[in-house]
């Protein structure tokens, strides 16, 4: 099995949470849903999502429901690939500690 590598962009906990959450849905998720689920403030989510967007991992769509502005997030194909590799790396590291050494 090839050695998966940790991704520097996804590595910080908040960004990993955002990506993992969006990957689980596979479609657009509303700003407040992401914020409430991972338990961060508006400003933290805005900042971290912008970094992910700059890296091409995240798409942002702004709209409104009635007069209330809404922001939606979705993981891009690049972001999904990066997350998959990152999670694989985490699993390898975690399993390395539990598997017996020869």
């Amino acid at each position: 099995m090839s050695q998966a590598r940790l991704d520097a962009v996804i590595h910080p906990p908040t960004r990993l949470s955002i990506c993992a959450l969006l990957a689980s849905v596979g479609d657009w998720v509303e700003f407040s849903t992401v914020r409430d689920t991972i338990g961060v403030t508006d400003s933290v989510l805005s900042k971290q999502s912008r970094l992910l967007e700059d890296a091409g991992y995240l798409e942002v769509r702004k709209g409104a429901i009635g007069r209330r502005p809404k922001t939606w997030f979705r993981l891009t194909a690049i972001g999904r690939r990066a997350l998959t590799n990152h999670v694989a790396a985490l699993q390898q590291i975690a399993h390395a500690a539990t598997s017996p050494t020869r």
Partner: protein
Amino acid sequence: VTEITPSEAQQSLQRIARERQTLADRIRLPGWYLALYVLAALVLFALPALVVAPHHRLATAILPVTIVAASAVLGLLDTVIRHVSGTRLSTDDTRSHPESRRPSLVVLGVVVCGSAATWIAAANASWAVSLVCGLVSAVLLVAARLRAVSAVRRHVSSAPRAAQ
């Protein structure tokens, strides 16, 4: 990237699983909608029996309105899920979550077969047979829809897959 310890990696994976479960918990149908859904299913499938039942004949003009209204309530499911979960999840979006493909096909099958059975029974057998077919179809439809919602929840809460 900086190196991390196995326990840190384990904690990260556990946090992802926990947050996915939190999101999955948001994907549940509100009680008022579930009640409305059951009612709409009962009305839709009991309609043929009510049309031919002695002393309970419905006016012809009411039929299309009732069918449209009941179908609209049944069709609102995905909109309600999107509203309560804050996601664009659809119970019929088999591309995003293939696990819901089978339950969604079952829903379609129940609607088609149930409608056909109740109308055929009302026309050729008796209103009582049609009513029984309708009740069974309504129960099957609600059960199939709940299974489709469960499939979506399972998909969201399932553990992240590693690279192949």
